[in-house]
């Protein structure tokens, strides 16, 4: 049932050009080089350290590895990370 529902949703997105972040609930990530990162549509921050920040999303988790990572602002709908970003991993 879920698989069929998923197929219908995928077809609707493809056919009608619907925004995927709204339909799938995916996060939006804006990257400025490897210095700055703005993330929207996330759940919360799981882990925060200077070298690693783990953010939980709707379906998975995102790990950001780097050096001197700082959260410039942490709002309800958006957060910005600054520093030297070395790696972005999506983990289940």
């Amino acid at each position: 049932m879920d698989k069929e529902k998923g197929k219908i949703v995928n077809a609707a997105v493809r056919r009608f050009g619907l925004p995927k972040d709204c339909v799938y609930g995916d996060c939006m990530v804006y990257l400025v080089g490897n210095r700055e990162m703005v993330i929207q549509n996330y759940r919360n921050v799981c882990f925060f350290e200077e070298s690693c920040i783990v953010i939980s999303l709707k379906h998975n988790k995102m790990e950001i590895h780097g050096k001197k990572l700082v959260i410039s602002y942490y709002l309800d709908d958006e957060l910005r990370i600054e520093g030297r970003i070395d790696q972005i991993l999506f983990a289940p």
Partner: protein
Amino acid sequence: MRKELLNGCVRLRITGESKERFLNMCRMKKIKMWNLKQEAGKRDELKTSSIVMCMGAKDLVECKSAIHKSGVKVDILEKKGLPFFLLHLKKRVVFAAGVLFCMLFLIVMMQKIWCIQIEGNRKVTTREMITFLEENDIGIGCIISKIPYEELEFKIRDRFPDITWVSVVRKGTTLIVRIKENEFYNQMSVYDDHMDLIADYDGEIRSMVVRQGVPLVRVGDTVSKGDILIQGAVPVLDENARICKYQYCHAQADILIRTTIQYSETINRVHLVRSYQNEDTYYQLGIAGHKFQIGFGKPEGTCLVQEQVHQLVLFEYLYLPFFLNQVKITPYEETEAIYTKEEAEAILQNSLEKYLYDLSEKGVQIIQKNVRIIENGLTMQIVADVTVDRSVGVSTETTVELTEYGENND
């Protein structure tokens, strides 16, 4: 950032195991946080690092339940913003009151004019203009909102016909009156017709170059003051050689006349000599017309007083009614002395030389001078007859008119 400083913000250190839980709980309460970073080198007993962050002062009160639930320890590192500044000022009430009083005083002072500047004037003196403004209730201390700028400009142009352009503006507490005077006023009359050229001195015509008009005199003629030299009405003759009409013009010519100027000056050999003593300086503070002296008073006897006024000005045009007068007093004693004959003669000669120099600066050529020095007791007089060649001619309206055909009434 300005809003945060206005409402007050704090910088916190969060330590404990569930720091992230605390952050998420604050986020759920829609509390804004910024500048979150791991504090370098600081670890607590459980070897976990601490987070330093900023949040609003009011939000700190709201996240008390989050602190309690997450079990973190919160230390306030810094407090910034207006509310904390006002709290700090509570201990310095007099200072704060002083600052407030100064600001209010400045605001009140800026409602009036404390300086008037006149720019561009040459014929019209600054004193004359300021006196005229005072007659129209515009002076130091008048209220800015009550100055009728356009009406004042009309009145200035009416009162001073030589002024062709005037602008009255206010900058800060300074009223600036900019004027432009008519420099070509005398020359404009050249373009008027019906003008004769008459002599303004007696003398003998030495040279004459006529550009326009009919000459009535020749080189070598002796003329008196008021005689017509060049007529501005050119007669037009018909076939019977009778004047049928006049063509009017502005008579113009370069005429040199030889005339004699009499110069005379008298001086009294008895004069007063001042012997100055040591100069002293004292200061006066002036506030809105009242003066308060600082230092010793004015010495007795006669003295020379020089006053220099400095007015307090903030920036360029924000004058305030505070003055510092620097008064220099030099007492002196006057004693009588008598010029010797040679000294008196030298003074009179210098005076004559200066007069002749001024004449030559105006283009007058000096041909001859006969100088006599007359001694009359304690007075000495210099009398000089100076023969000069100078330009002559003043324009006046012609009186020549054609009344009947062939006749005129000149």
